[in-house]
């Protein structure tokens, strides 16, 4: 750990200006990622941390079938929101499947979107090869033991996983991210917020340095659309997903009218399964349809020895959540 300056500000414009002007500055919100990587692992070495927890970015409001969630709302606050339980219950399920109660009390929604990968090669500064940490240095995870890693959007450059549960449900809902820069604000759909690693795994999203997530907008599901989040993990609680799936289905007369599907535990980014959704749209709600959708969702994986099992497991996870959301067992 190298010494850093800590600044707490109550003014959003000042915070954005401070970070934008200083390439060594980073935001500090709940701290559940930042403190690990800065203080314990020594992987990030910011010169200055700007504490944004006093900025007016809290509160959850609902209007016109859209939930507006401040970036500093905590995971537990969002999980406790009645509209979430009623209209997007799989968001609540995903939130409560993540982390631990203690962490959920600290971790913010904005921070959840920006959480860094759990890849232990990234998080260990004694590992020289990590394209995400040191661009161009290679990827040790591809050659070493790797199990909790991505198989979609991955390549020999990087197999680091985006481990969020919440974002899987959010990306299925076409959530929109509101961003504040020095001169302007903008909105980006979450499906376009993340950047596939390609040969620059260090670039994880479209944020410019200094841009701040202020709020997210979650479109609510139509009444009658059933949703679910299924997380498959080795440990029964407090553990990241091996595979997970968030699904929402609207079924009329045994036919799938609308479908949303996203995957966790497999992607370098929260993975929206658009090809699978296309198969589901208009198809009969049967196990056969679900299996076809699952196979479409896992097309073109990049696996290493330790992650090959995730193809089949993810497909079975998708079939199970579609069965549960539809009530169709056979």
């Amino acid at each position, binding site marked *: 750990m190298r010494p850093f300056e800590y600044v707490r500000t109550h003014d959003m414009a000042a915070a954005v200006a401070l970070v934008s002007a200083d390439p060594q500055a980073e935001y500090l919100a709940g701290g559940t990622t930042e403190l690990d990587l800065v203080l314990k692992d020594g992987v990030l070495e910011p010169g200055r941390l700007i504490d944004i927890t006093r900025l007016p970015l809290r509160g959850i409001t609902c209007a016109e079938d859209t939930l507006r969630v401040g970036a500093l709302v905590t995971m537990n606050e969002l999980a406790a929101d009645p509209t979430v339980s009623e209209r997007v219950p799989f968001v609540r399920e995903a939130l409560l499947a993540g982390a631990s109660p203690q962490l959920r009390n600290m971790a913010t929604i904005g921070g959840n979107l920006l959480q860094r990968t759990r890849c232990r090669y990234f998080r260990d500064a004694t590992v020289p090869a990590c394209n995400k940490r040191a661009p161009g240095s290679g990827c040790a995870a591809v050659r070493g033991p790797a199990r909790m890693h991505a198989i979609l959007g991955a390549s020999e450059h990087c197999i680091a996983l985006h481990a969020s549960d919440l974002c899987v449900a959010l990306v299925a809902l076409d959530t929109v991210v509101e961003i504040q820069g020095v001169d302007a604000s903008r909105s980006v759909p979450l499906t376009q917020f993340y950047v596939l690693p390609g040969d620059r795994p260090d670039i994880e999203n479209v944020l410019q340095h200094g841009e701040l997530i202020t709020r997210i907008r979650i479109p609510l599901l139509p009444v009658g659309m059933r949703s679910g989040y299924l997380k498959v993990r080795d440990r029964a*609680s407090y553990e990241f997903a091996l595979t997970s799936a968030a699904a929402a289905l609207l079924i009329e007369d045994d036919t799938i009218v609308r479908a949303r599907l996203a995957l966790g535990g497999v992607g370098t980014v929260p993975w929206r399964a658009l090809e699978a959704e296309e198969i589901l749209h208009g198809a009969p709600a049967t196990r056969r349809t679900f299996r076809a959708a699952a196979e479409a969702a896992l097309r073109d994986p990049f696996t290493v020895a330790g992650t090959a099992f995730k193809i089949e497991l993810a497909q079975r996870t998708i079939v199970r959540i579609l069965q549960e959301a539809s009530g169709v067992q056979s």
Partner: protein
Amino acid sequence: MTTATREKVIGEPVDRVDGPAKVTGTAHYPSDFTFPDLTHAVLVQSTIAVGTIRGIDAARAEAAPGVLAVLTHENAPALVEAPVTLVDGPPPFPFKDNRIVHRGQHVAVVVARTHEQATAASRLVEIDYEEAAAVLRIDDPRAPVMPDRFAGLSGRGPGDVARGDVAAALASAEVVYDETFTTAPVTNNPMGLFATVARWEDDQLTVHDANQWPTMVRKTLATVFDLSETDVRVLVPYLGGGFGNGLRAWPHVILTALAARVVGRPVKLVLTRPQMFTSVGHRPESLQRVRLGASRDGRLVAVAHESTSTIGSLDNGQIEPVTQVTGNAYSCPNVATHDERARLNIPCPHSMRGPGTTQGNFALESALDEVSYTLGIDPIELRLRNYTEVHPVSGQSWSSKSLRQCYRAGAERFGWERRTPEIGSMRDGNWLVGYGMAGVTFTPGEAPCQATVSISRDGTAHMRSAATDLGTGTYTIATQVTAELLGLDFDKVHVEIGDSDLPSAPYSGGSALAVSLSGAIEDAIRNLVGALLDVVADDESSPLRGRSPDEVTLGNGGIQVADAPAIGETYLDILNRHGLPEITAFGERDPWANPASRPLGSFAAWFAEVRVDADLGLPRVARMVSAVDAGRVLNEKLARSQMIGGAVMGIGMTMLEETVFDPNTGRIANATFGDYLIPANADVPDIDVVFVGTPDEVRPIGIKGLGEIGVVGVSAAIANAVYHATGRRIRSLPITIEQLL
């Protein structure tokens, strides 16, 4: 001399005497100790697995704020070689020369005024390595093999067994079984990070240290620093667990004392969680082969069990006794077992709760389960057909053995009769349900131990010994034993342990401490009574005048004549009348000088219900039952907690835990609690424990020891249940979802 208390305290589920201190924060663990001029040390560890250090540039670290010293093999004073202990040889000392034998080897110690300064500076030490090819796989033909050299924890006897003609018996057996098993390396991971605080006053060294054996650490430090043992004091009044980690004086302990001497100020070193994976041992990986020959009616005619376990390069550690108990588990005329170790460039493995036996039981009890399906015999019935009333290796009868009752009581509480034998026949929705069981034969240890017992005029008694309390309850059970034998109220007895200046005690390990310490307490009280009777030998006002220890009993706070209980007096009366503030007696027991007349064993049966999701392959342990014969149980509540704790550890190594060594670099790929999974509460089902059996006739207080047996048998019971649920026979731990998809 006998004891005739009105109210027995041995066996009672009394609360921990150290409980209030622990929950109020007044129990001081090694890392809690501090001094006004305390400094802090942080380790720098090798980032290569094998090779040499070409050079070290510590200039930037030395110039960093607050730094007092940077110690490396280049500037550290030479030390004397550490001694061989009762258990094994010392781990290799890393600062002896420029050789690197494993990744994570300590290569420098940075001492600074604050922990943060030392941590920051530790990242500035630049090491220039010359890397060589590492040997990192247990089956690597380049790995040198270490045969059975040390016998393991003393009292466990030599390792390999050979009786009868195994080859001939296998060749002619009606049913032959031959399979290979592997168990992953797993890491002890006590909750308390190991820490050392060292302080020199002239040539006297005081060390607060996380360990399970203060007198061994004292001897090691005295030897390496060329001091008299009386000039070294090792204190560990409380310890945040160990599970075997604390049975060695690891290099960081010596380096902390060395750093304190170099900087001339007290030094504290606390290992980080990742360093706990590389610095204080782990359960080694095992590769085992089990061959069984049996008749069609389920009688074993041959058992062959061979195992290779990993060990560190240059390590003088003990053999890992994986197959040791196999020769004593069942009645079989032809048995051959063999243990050896493969030397790899990995951090030294060492003892972890039930070392060896835990891994070996998994293979043997899984193999028996497989044979039970081959023959169509109920798994319990198969074990009963091969039950042995005698200790097979010696041919003598066991000092006590209630394994039959373990099977019966365990099966009843578990509801074994509800099991339908066909695979996959017990389904509940998406869950495939399986029942499995395993038998356990375990050899607990014992070791020489000393203690003093004092009675004071304030009505209290003190028991003192250099033993430790791992957190399992030594304070409490020693209080119970002392109170009951003296015939004093429980709250009048105080126990002082965890200090090497106290009478010598063995390790908290090998399930040996409770029995060893109880034997010493018994002897001390016998001597105390003798001393009290000596005091009143010519005392005309004493009703006990002229009595010998054989003629009296203890109870109600004093001594009475055995065949005339109305005649007697209290301890206080004697002390008061003779103006004695206190009277103290020393006691000891050496089971090695006078070995028990009959062989000893603890026994158990584990039962597990496992549920596996039929589509997802997700395995979950639904409930477990254990029936245990550990002789007399000193404290029912603590004993149950010991068994439950063992089961949780067993569930961990069976379902979740694996210390993953990168086969290319030797780096541990998951050395954090975010990556190395231990069971969370949600992974721990209802665990029902029942104690059966009788007090052992041969050992003090009738104790056989149950510190380790809780972890043994868990893996096989679960794996056997997984097979019953799914038809998948998993011979490789941990059992993971990818094996069940």
